């Protein structure tokens, strides 16, 4: 208990007030020093952070370049459509939301599956499409109910479309969503990584893949001021995107269409090349598939159907699958004989119908043989015996060396990926190819089969067509290419893919003439005569029948085995023989004799290309029409 006078009381109180005043001063001093720290000393740091906060670079994805054929027929284009998109990060119960959405807009099981798959490979703040290509009615229905679905939006997106459907699908290829592996590759290159911000599709195969850089264009950027919620407030600056360049192909869509139609439902491949430029006029792989299926991410049913089909529609038969060339190899063997001086054109052999070598009889098709056979006749009647003996005389090394000059056994360098190199057999190749020492040795008997395009011979139709075009051009070899020029859509400036002569094979013109004449003979009164009866132009050709099936990875359904054990039918041709404008190679899998199933296809293709004549009956629809 202490008693104090009011004066003492007031004095003490004033002391306390003074202490309080000092305390206030100290605390405010603390605040001021904090202000100085933030606003003077750390000012630069926070200014930068404020700028980062405020400006967001939003990529503007460029329009992908078009792909058109040599006449301007559009083969790949873009169109704008509405998609229903979900941002998973903004949604609590994804399944419930999708269920509720399904009550408004038709969402099928495959849409859900595709969405789940996208979800696995995406970040949750990305907006992912659950339904593509909404109709106007669907858009209206959703908009009316939008309030129920936070985190679900309708967006307009550009879609790749292949208006011709299954047409030339192996050439065009398709685009699909960028997967993790592709993303990694893109991100290795900073410039490329920046250019792919905002892009979610990339070329997966065919031209779409090999000309990705041209087709993609340059991503634009918009500097957008954003608020904390990420909402755009206003645009500060805009760097417009540069649209992807247009690919103008050497391909002739109509020709391709006629060729595809000519195959009907048979499997096979056709490659047609301009001998004077290397431009590919048609590149057929049958059966085809619809690349439109891949654009949104293919659904499992379609994928299974394509992947498990015994016909293997996804295999690019024209450049990836390799086949023994059969008798179509003979003109090249003959050329090699002339080049190496092993045979003259007039030198004839007597064909008893078989060739004896090392105690083994190599048979000819024709019992009793063709009698006396010179080089021209050997090609026209497709005499095996002639080539058995020729191969034996030349020896495998000379065959490999000379035929190698025509590009056999090496990639042609065509401008789409996935080309196989095939096999031009040689002792070196055998040594490399086989592991077991007893299999590594080259046997002289194996050379004999090589002479008629059998044995280890294995080429793609691309190579065979390339060699045929080279032969047609008198030995001048051009690099095959599908793109004629690349065009900038804004300036219309063209980057022309100039015909690229790779080399000139040293063949004497008189030797060329022998081979050309013999091949003309094939179509006049030889194995191709039926197919080319009444042709208004002179076409050179050679039939072939290959005994070995070697489509890689093929498995056979038991019911199809019978059909699938039949020989492959082949045909090579060029026309007009005197000044070739087109050279081609055709393969019909299990088509039997080349003369029966392959040569008629060549006839239709040449008739159209040289005469503009369309095949009667099953006339293909006009390209460009939908």
């Amino acid at each position, binding site marked *: 208990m202490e008693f104090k006078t009011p004066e003492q009381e007031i004095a003490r109180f004033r002391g306390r007030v003074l202490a309080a005043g000092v305390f206030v001063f100290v605390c405010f001093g603390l605040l001021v020093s904090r202000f100085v720290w933030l606003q003077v000393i750390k*000012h630069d*740091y926070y200014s930068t952070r404020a700028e980062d906060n405020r400006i967001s670079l939003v990529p503007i994805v460029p329009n992908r370049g078009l792909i058109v054929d040599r006449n301007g027929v559009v083969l790949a284009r873009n169109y704008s459509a509405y998609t229903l998109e979900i941002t998973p990060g903004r949604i609590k119960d994804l399944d419930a939301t999708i269920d509720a959405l399904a009550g408004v807009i038709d969402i099928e099981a495959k849409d859900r599956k595709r969405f789940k798959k996208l979800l696995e490979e995406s970040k949750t703040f990305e907006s992912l499409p659950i339904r593509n290509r909404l109709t106007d009615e669907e858009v209206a229905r959703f908009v009316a109910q939008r309030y129920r679905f936070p985190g679900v939006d309708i967006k307009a997106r550009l879609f790749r479309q292949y208006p011709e459907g299954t047409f030339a699908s192996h050439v065009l290829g398709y685009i699909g969503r960028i997967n993790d592996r592709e993303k990694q590759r893109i991100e290795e290159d900073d410039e490329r990584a920046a250019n792919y911000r905002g892009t979610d599709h990339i070329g997966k195969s065919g031209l779409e893949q090999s000309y990705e850089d041209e087709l993609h264009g340059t991503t634009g950027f918009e500097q957008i001021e954003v608020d904390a919620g990420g909402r755009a407030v206003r645009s500060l600056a805009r760097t417009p995107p540069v649209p992807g360049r247009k690919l103008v192909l050497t391909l002739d869509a109509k020709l391709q269409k006629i060729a595809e139609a000519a195959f009907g439902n048979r499997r096979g491949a056709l490659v047609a090349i301009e001998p004077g430029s290397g431009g590919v006029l048609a590149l057929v792989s049958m059966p085809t598939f619809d690349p439109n299926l891949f654009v949104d991410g293919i659904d499992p049913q379609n994928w299974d159907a394509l992947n498990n089909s015994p016909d293997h529609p996804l295999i690019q038969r024209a450049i990836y699958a390799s086949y023994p060339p059969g008798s179509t190899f003979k003109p090249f063997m003959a050329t090699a004989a002339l080049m190496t001086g092993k045979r003259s054109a007039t030198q004839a052999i007597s064909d008893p119908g078989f060739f004896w070598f090392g105690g083994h009889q190599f048979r000819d098709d024709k019992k009793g043989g063709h009698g006396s056979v010179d080089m021209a006749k050997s090609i026209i009647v497709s005499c095996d015996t002639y080539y058995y003996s020729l191969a034996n005389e030349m020896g495998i090394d000379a065959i490999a060396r000379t035929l190698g000059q025509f590009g056999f056994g090496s990639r042609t360098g065509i401008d789409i990926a996935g080309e196989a190199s095939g096999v031009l057999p040689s002792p070196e190749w055998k040594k490399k190819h086989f592991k077991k020492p007893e299999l590594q040795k080259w046997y002289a008997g194996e050379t004999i089969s090589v002479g008629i395009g059998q044995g280890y011979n294995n080429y793609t139709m691309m190579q065979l067509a390339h060699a045929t075009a080279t032969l047609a051009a008198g030995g001048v070899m051009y690099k095959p290419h599908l793109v004629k020029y690349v065009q900038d859509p804004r300036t219309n400036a063209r980057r022309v893919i100039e015909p690229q002569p790779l080399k000139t094979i040293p063949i004497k013109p008189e030797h060329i003439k022998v081979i050309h004449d013999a091949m003309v003979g094939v179509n006049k009164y030889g194995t191709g005569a039926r197919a080319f009866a009444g042709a208004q132009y002179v076409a050179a050709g050679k039939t072939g029948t290959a005994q070995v099936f070697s489509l890689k990875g093929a498995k056979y359904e038991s019911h199809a085995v019978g059909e699938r054990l039949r020989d492959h039918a082949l045909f090579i041709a060029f026309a007009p023989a005197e000044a070739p404008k087109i050279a081609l190679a055709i393969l019909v899998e299990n088509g039997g004799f080349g003369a029966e199933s392959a040569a008629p296809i060549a006839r239709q293709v040449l008739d159209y290309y040289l005469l503009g004549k369309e095949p009667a009956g099953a006339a293909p629809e006009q390209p460009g029409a939908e």
Partner: protein
Amino acid sequence: MILQRLWRRIAAPIDPFLFVLVVMLICFTTVVQLSASPDRWQAQMINTAVGLVVLWTAANVTPQLLQRFALPLYVLGVLLLVAVALFGQISKGAQRWLDLGVMRIQPSELLKIAMPLMLAWYFQLREGSLAVRDFLVAGALLAVPVGLIAKQPDLGTAILVLSSGLFVIFFAGLSWKLIAPVLLAGVVGVGAIIATEDRICAPEVQWPGLREYQKHRICTLLDPTSDPLGKGFHTIQSEIAIGSGGVLGKGWRNGTQTQLEFIPERHTDFVFAVVSEEFGLLGNVGLLFIFLLVIMRGLMIAANGATVFGRLLAGAISLSFFTYVFVNMGMVTGILPVVGVPLPLVSYGGTALVTLCLGLGILMSVARHRTLLQK
């Protein structure tokens, strides 16, 4: 003649020095709110008008009358807090409001004034015969409402009510021997928390007597990046706003952080970030100077108070005003935890404004009472 008399009648209770400062603050607030929240500008003008009427009215009430209100207001406030605890509405995880059918009231707001009134009244009652026991009673009178408010939970109001009471006790003459160890313990405690932040902020560690959100709030203060999108977001963004403001600021309505809505509650508790960003260090120090003058004027009024009640009340109100300013600026600049304390007369909102004007009015009343006595 009538006008002159009317003017005298109006001006009579007004402390001119404080009033000029208040008018300066109101003008400043108008400018800031026009930038931070232009839509609410008119509503804030109405709030201000109401606040000024309350201020003037309170200035007219004599301290003697106020003394009579002390106990009933305190009892009413505590009863309402109990009612809130029993029947209150839960909103945003906190139970703060009573729904009286016609209006919702937040009784904790009443205690901001009732608490210092009550304790000043109590010490006035014990004038001249102050014993240690009286400080214990005062502590108990303080603990009840503060405990109820903290339980709601409303940390910001609890701190304001607690500090207003502690200031009365401090001015009443609580021995330095008691104050010093508590202050020391506080400093050591805060230092220890900062030093051991990593360990005590680990998710599995529970803090005795504190709720998870309170621990979270303190830990976020220690390391705002630990919760960059939650509570830390406030601090990080307001620090960016303040820092990027620099010495001169970005200019009125040019604050990107503010205008682009990076600052949450930019018109209420975080309005100071707007000031800092747009008016820079200069604006901050200027504003702080006005506040300092208000507090100093308040302390002067307290020092010259005629009665114990008046002195204690004026002192407590002045320091409470300081607490508002310090806690608010401290949390916005990232040196104190984020608690809901507005910046006096600058933050948008009617209730706090009215409470503060009531306090300023009481200050004027105390000031006037002294002059009346001297006359």
